[in-house]
């Protein structure tokens, strides 16, 4: 049967979410002839709809449903209702992402083995490794058109990159370039080249940056095997007496409740909403939430340690011009405990517009220390830290039973406190970042605290042993054979790389697995 599908059609795979995980999985399955219904809480926005204005775009795209926070992270104090800056739209956070597309380093797949015991950290090895993922990384890079992979050339460097590159090289760093970016340096796959417009975070109006919103989603729909229902907000997953999931209950845009029955359910609502849905799906059979016999659903929330460094110079930089994040220094990404911490970090160029600089430079700050920095906005260069943070069982997404969303469902509380390793790494990265700008004659440098999380990871982690995590090596839940997790919440550990490429590679791999299992009659 071709899309649209009937709500009683029990042959369909239902995927919750249409971002890097869910959107790619939906298309990959549709291309293989599998019937898919995708449920997306947000609306449809395409390049012509994107707004190159930071706050207006935030209002258009960001997930602003209520959430709460706790823990000692500064986000909880400065942005108590906004733990994460992620998107509610068809295409999910692939509309907002910067495009940085990096493979994990080989050793990062086996963090527990390679880092050893780290007190207070809940480290675990992934049940998969670099060799197994290599072909899927190559497929993902080809799909996204990642620069500096295959025969694709790098993007040109903007002003912000030139300051960053020259400073890094003065310090003796060598692995400095304009990044491996899912932003076209020349026309690719029917999408045009980057026009150096800035506003990568607000949705690329040229379509030069890969987003599932205008690639995988429409291609999947064109097969006739994929139906995307936008503005359909999932409340819970349901199961039968046999324990297998049998459908998904959601509210449509008019506030009418529906149930789509399903042969298989894949959860890809990101690392905050995915565990929330599983926890909100508790029943007498699954009293602690669905797929949660391990007690690990919602735990080990990771966000990369992050932080930014801004440098002020006596001459203009105009960091807002050009590709937002096309610049990287990778010399510090190695695992080298001699620095005082395990794991490593990337430094990546970053430029914010004046409105977001004012909001994020020093949240809560005021007075001349704050305003004299903004007075030099035109002369600022910026970089972002992406480092591996430690999984901790106590950093977790739970249901806040005291706060309900617009549908009466308990909202997610996001609890996060830095591990000592995170603090040591951030301090090191702040110091190196400031040194890069000092080497270029900065008159002032500003080590800036983490923003609301964009890399949300690990709350339904992958594990070899069902006691240690929520899903197996294929993203299939240990507890329920026809329930999968298909987003960054699968991450066993976070590694030091921007996560989207790995989420896409895992989704392509999972599509192969699900299609094969369907073909074998195992699902």
């Amino acid at each position, binding site marked *: 049967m071709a899309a649209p599908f009937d709500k009683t059609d029990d042959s369909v795979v239902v995927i919750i979410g249409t971002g890097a995980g869910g959107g790619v999985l939906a298309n990959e399955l549709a291309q293989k002839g599998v019937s898919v219904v995708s449920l997306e809480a947000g609306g449809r926005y395409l390049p012509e709809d994107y707004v190159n204005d930071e706050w207006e775009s935030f209002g258009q795209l960001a997930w602003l449903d209520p959430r709460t926070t706790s823990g000692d992270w500064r986000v909880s104090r400065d942005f108590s209702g906004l733990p994460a800056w992620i998107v509610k739209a068809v295409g999910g956070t692939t509309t907002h992402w910067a495009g940085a597309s990096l493979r994990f380093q080989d050793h990062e797949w086996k963090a527990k083995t390679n880092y050893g015991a780290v007190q207070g950290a809940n480290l675990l090895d992934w049940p998969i490794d670099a060799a197994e993922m290599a072909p899927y990384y190559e497929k993902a890079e080809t799909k996204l058109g990642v620069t500096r992979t295959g025969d694709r050339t790098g993007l040109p460097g903007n002003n912000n990159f030139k300051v960053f590159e020259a400073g890094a090289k003065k310090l003796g760093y060598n692995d400095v370039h304009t990044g491996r970016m899912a932003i076209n340096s020349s026309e690719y796959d029917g999408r045009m080249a980057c026009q150096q417009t800035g506003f990568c975070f607000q949705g690329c109006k040229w379509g030069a940056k890969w987003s599932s919103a205008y690639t995988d989603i429409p291609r999947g729909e064109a097969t006739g095997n994929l139906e995307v229902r936008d503005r359909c907000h999932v409340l819970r997953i349901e199961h039968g007496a046999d324990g297998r999931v049998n459908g998904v209950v959601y509210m449509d845009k008019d506030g009418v409740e529906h149930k789509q029955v399903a042969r298989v359910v894949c959860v890809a609502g990101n690392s905050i909403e995915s565990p929330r849905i599983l926890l909100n799906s508790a029943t007498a059979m699954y009293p602690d939430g669905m797929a949660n016999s391990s007690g690990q659903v919602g735990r080990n929330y990771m966000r990369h340690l992050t932080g930014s460094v801004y440098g002020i110079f006596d001459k203009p930089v105009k960091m807002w011009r050009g590709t937002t994040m096309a610049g990287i220094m990778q010399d510090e990404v190695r695992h080298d405990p001699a620095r005082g911490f395990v794991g490593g970090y990337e430094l990546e160029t970053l430029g914010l517009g*004046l409105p977001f600089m004012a909001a994020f430079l020093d949240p809560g700050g005021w007075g001349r220390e704050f305003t004299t920095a903004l007075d030099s*906005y035109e002369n600022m260069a910026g970089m972002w830290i992406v480092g591996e943070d430690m999984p901790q069982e106590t950093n977790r997404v739970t249901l806040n039973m005291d706060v309900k969303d617009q549908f009466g469902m308990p909202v997610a509380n996001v609890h996060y406190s830095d591990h000592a390793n995170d603090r040591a790494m951030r301090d090191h990265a702040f110091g190196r970042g400031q040194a890069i700008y000092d080497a270029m004659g900065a008159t002032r440098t500003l080590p800036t605290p983490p923003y609301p999380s964009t890399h949300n990871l690990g709350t339904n982690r992958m594990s070899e042993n069902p006691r240690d995590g929520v899903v197996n090596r294929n993203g299939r839940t240990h507890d329920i054979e026809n329930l999968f997790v298909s987003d960054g919440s699968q991450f066993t550990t976070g590694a030091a790389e921007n996560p989207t490429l790995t989420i896409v590679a895992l989704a392509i791999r999972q599509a192969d697995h699900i299609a094969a299992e369907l073909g074998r009659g195992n699902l």
Partner: protein
Amino acid sequence: MTIKTDLKGLTRRQLLSRGAAAGAGFVIGTNFVSGQDAAWATEMNALKPDTMATLIQMARDIYPHDKVADEFYAAAVKGYDVPDAVDDTEAGIEMLNGVARGKGYGSYLDIGWERDRVDILRSIEDSAFFQKIRGGLVTGLYNQKAVWPIFGYEGESYSQGGYINRGFDDITWIG
């Protein structure tokens, strides 16, 4: 911001005939606040003009940019000049003036040095009133498109084809 055309363009002398010069450079009339040079004026809908003038000064003291004219601070706090916000705002400014009087000044606006006003703001920075005003300014001030050029920020570039041919890499001082 409401700019009354019959106030805008008045000479300073004409303005002063309708109100009283106050504090750091405002003219406070019976139903308006303006700059002493009459470059801008805002007519009051709900707040007392004294309260609005104090709020404008408070906004500048929280986020002082010497290159940014008063009219932008006035626009940033104009949203409190509505019936729903009057009680909280009048009470907050009265609290501020109370602290000023406690330190021997006639009012917040009577304090001549920024550092002395900032001392008072520091003493109330944990109050809900201060945090509401400060938080509102983050967008109220810095998200005014008219303010952006003062900081050199160019806003969107899509309508001009991005910066691919307009200087994305035009930096000249890198050796």
